[in-house]
């Protein structure tokens, strides 16, 4: 009987965890931007507050994804991936510090 109670308790805990955690997990998305041939592809993306933007550097040269307002500065060594979670609504223009003509923008919605 002890084991049964333990299982029930575990079920309750999991159910509660599900109630509190799963909606968040389901809501937050990861949006991937390819960094290839000295360009952010796609250059313009839309995200929601809490989403993560991930940059995948396919080039053999290093890049960065740096917010124009310096809100983030993600280093992207050759062949590596970097990410940032967006926390407030608004448009965030960004660029590559090493190749300043590489530009992108994240439109963050509530």
């Amino acid at each position: 009987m002890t084991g049964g109670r333990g299982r029930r308790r575990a079920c309750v805990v999991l159910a509660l965890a599900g109630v509190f955690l799963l909606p968040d997990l389901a809501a937050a998305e990861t949006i991937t931007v390819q960094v290839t041939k000295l360009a952010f592809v796609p250059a313009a993306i839309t995200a929601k507050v809490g989403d993560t933007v991930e940059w995948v550097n396919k080039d053999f040269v290093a890049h960065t994804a740096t917010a124009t307002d310096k809100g983030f500065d993600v280093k992207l060594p050759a062949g590596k991936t970097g990410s940032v979670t967006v926390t407030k609504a608004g448009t965030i223009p960004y660029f590559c510090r090493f190749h300043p003509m590489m530009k992108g923008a994240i439109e963050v919605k509530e």
Partner: protein
Amino acid sequence: MNALNRLGIALAGLMLTTTLGLAAENAKPTDPQIAHIAYTADNIDIKAAELAVKTSKNKAVQDFAKDMIRDHEAVNKQALALVAKLKVKPEDNATSQALVKQADATQAHLATLKGAAFDKAYVDNEVAYHHAVNTALETTLIPAAQNAELKELLSTGLQIFKGHEDHARMVAGELK
């Protein structure tokens, strides 16, 4: 006079030249020669950038020069890995020699300059140099490359160097 000689002479007159006037159909550099030209062109830009890092006090120029070193070293690493894989032995040639000769003259001239005069001369040369190399890649070297992987690497290099040309123009604009 073949197109490669013309490339060399045009590069020798780089400061005045906006068009290399290459006739792609007459240019027949071999893959070992192309590999040598590409590697030589890369190293020339690294040397100029090293001088800029040492000489310039301007942050935009310093940053640009460091970007050049980082990227051209990355390209060279790829190029060396590729020639090793393909067992191609880079072959010295008239174009490489003309490139080196011109670069030595430019480097000697830059070494006499300081401050804003250096910054302007270095960045203006970077615009002209990348433009000349990009034109040569586009009209001569890429079309002539026989090996598909070499062609691909040169094409990627062209994308990177076009970015450098734009970046150099941007810095040149800031210096004015």
